[in-house]
């Protein structure tokens, strides 16, 4: 029972790191980015290549995964995404689906279509028992890293100058521009950072989520659930939403395996009908 809760929390934390970048980009630029999973996949493959093929230590590879994905995100933002902000949602959907298809086929071409695993160090394998609860070390690590990240993000968002600019831009872009805040720059940075986090999540998640070329398609819906259920106006919303989703998914698969992902989708639809702005969001005014 508690082990399930624990696994669910680990899974949820992972989802949070994967999806929080998406929530900011959606809130800030009203951009529907279905290709977010592609950046996560990039991070995962970076880890696999570095660890398995080049023998780089696990820790270094994870950090590399972050930076590579962030760099890809930054370049993509400057080169392509900039042009679609002002376009209708239909264009954004088409564009990002196009990116998903391309990334899936490209990953298939480069890495093969089978599922790959990264070799994780000995120290992280196995379980430790605390108060009779079996906890996987790797999952413990994920919770630690993701928890720290969530706290760090919350701190940056609430207490730093960049954070207040970001919040201002999310709240009302036009007024923020009028006050001399360079929204475009903030967005580029946030996008890159969000992509980096996705890459980090993808790298950490290779063990739990599995990594194959269809990753962006498979998890797209999960990211979107986190964002739509959690709302886009804060970090806490998506955080709680990811935890809920993670626990519900793990518990659902454990207790009622017959229903499969059915539970998640139904919950999502119900929440969206009940509160279209998200479960934890105040009523948006846009």
């Amino acid at each position, binding site marked *: 029972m508690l082990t399930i809760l624990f696994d669910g929390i680990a899974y949820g934390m992972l989802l949070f790191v994967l999806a929080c970048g998406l929530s900011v980009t*959606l809130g800030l630029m009203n951009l*529907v980015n279905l290709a977010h999973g592609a950046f996560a996949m990039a991070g995962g493959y970076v880890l696999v290549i570095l660890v398995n093929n080049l023998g780089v230590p696990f820790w270094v590879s994870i950090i590399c995964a972050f930076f590579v994905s962030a760099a890809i995100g930054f370049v993509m933002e400057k080169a*392509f995404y900039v*042009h*679609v902000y002002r*376009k209708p*949602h*239909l*264009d*954004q*959907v*088409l*564009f990002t*689906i*196009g*990116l*998903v*298809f*391309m*990334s*899936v*086929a*490209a990953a*298939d*071409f480069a890495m093969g*279509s089978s599922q790959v695993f990264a070799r994780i160090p000995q120290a992280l394998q196995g379980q430790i028992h605390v108060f009779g609860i079996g906890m996987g070390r790797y999952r413990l690590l994920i919770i630690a890293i993701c928890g720290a990240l969530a706290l760090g993000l919350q701190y940056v968002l609430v207490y730093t100058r960049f954070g207040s600019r970001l919040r201002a831009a999310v709240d009302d872009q036009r007024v923020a521009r009028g006050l001399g805040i360079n929204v475009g720059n903030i967005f580029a940075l946030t996008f890159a950072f969000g992509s980096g986090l996705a890459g980090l999540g993808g790298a950490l998640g290779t063990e739990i989520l599995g990594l194959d070329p269809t990753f962006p*398609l498979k998890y797209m*819906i999960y990211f*979107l*659930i986190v964002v*739509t259920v959690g709302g886009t106006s804060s970090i806490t919303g998506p955080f709680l939403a990811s935890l809920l989703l993670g626990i519900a998914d793990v518990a659902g698969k454990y207790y009622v395996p*017959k*229903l*499969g*992902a*059915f539970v998640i*989708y*139904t919950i*999502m*639809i119900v929440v*969206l*009908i009940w509160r*279209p702005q998200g479960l934890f969001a105040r009523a948006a005014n846009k």
Partner: protein
Amino acid sequence: MTEPTPTAKLAAQGILARARWHPLEFVFWIAAFSAIWLLPNKHLILTEIAWLALFALSLDLILGYAGILSLGHAAFFGVGSYAAALLAKHGIITEPVLALVAAGLIAAVVGFATSFLMLRGADLTRLMVSLGVALVLRELANKFSDLTGGADGLQGVTMEPILGRFRFDMFGHNGFAYCLIVLFVLFLAARRLMASPFGLALLSVKGNPLRARAIGINVDARLVTIYTIAAFYAGVAGGLLAQTTAFSSLDVFSFDRSADLLLVLIIGGTGYLYGGLIGAVIFKVMQDYLAVLTPQYWPFWIGLVLVVLVMVGRDRMLRWTEPVRTLANRLDWRAKGQGQAS
């Protein structure tokens, strides 16, 4: 009875002008029907084009005319497909045309039920809800494997001859004629519907829901209606697939299908009904060509087309149709003074 005001007369003329047939439309349908005799060895792919065109037409009804962004349109396609296959397998309705109508109606019921979910929220919410509905249906089809065959697909379906006379042959000759006629009939209905005040009201809803409501249009009722109709169309398209292949699998609900469908419609252009039809032709030919070229990686090229389409701009990409249209307008003696009315 009072004399109509000049504005009312103008409006009436405008509506009539929209309903008028353009010469190019005759050319299009003559070309389509002549394929029955001119391209006899291409009938299998032409059949696919025909049901895909109908499916895209159905998306056009909600996207191009009502402005509803859906990523789960495959839901209704799938329902129609399974309905048609199950009706035939269990011998409930053996005659294909009746079964097709029944499949469409079943899909329409599902569409009606889920349309209320689509009324709330902005684009993203709708997108998610439609996607969610398709996923839920897919899970259902997967779980009730006794009925649907689960992941293996529904096998052992035998189709009776159409109207008791025309058998589905393995070269797809009758299948193609059947699909094309269904497409044509439903197209006529859609065309009539969209040229009617109902269609115009829908367009106004797409343009600005708030203003549409202010001039007395019952926005929600219109959206529910068109969503249900579109679901019917999609269901019939799915039914055609099931009937011509005598098979139905989970694949009919897949996200890729909904996404591909968007591409089909976008290639052809939204909001003038022919977009889906033209898009279906281009898409299938392209897919066929690319699949031969790079069997495994053709989604890459599909993705590339999408990205390029958006980057260059959809309206700019579709400008190639303009010379054709102006030429046709010049030929059309009735179109004088109307300019780009089509």
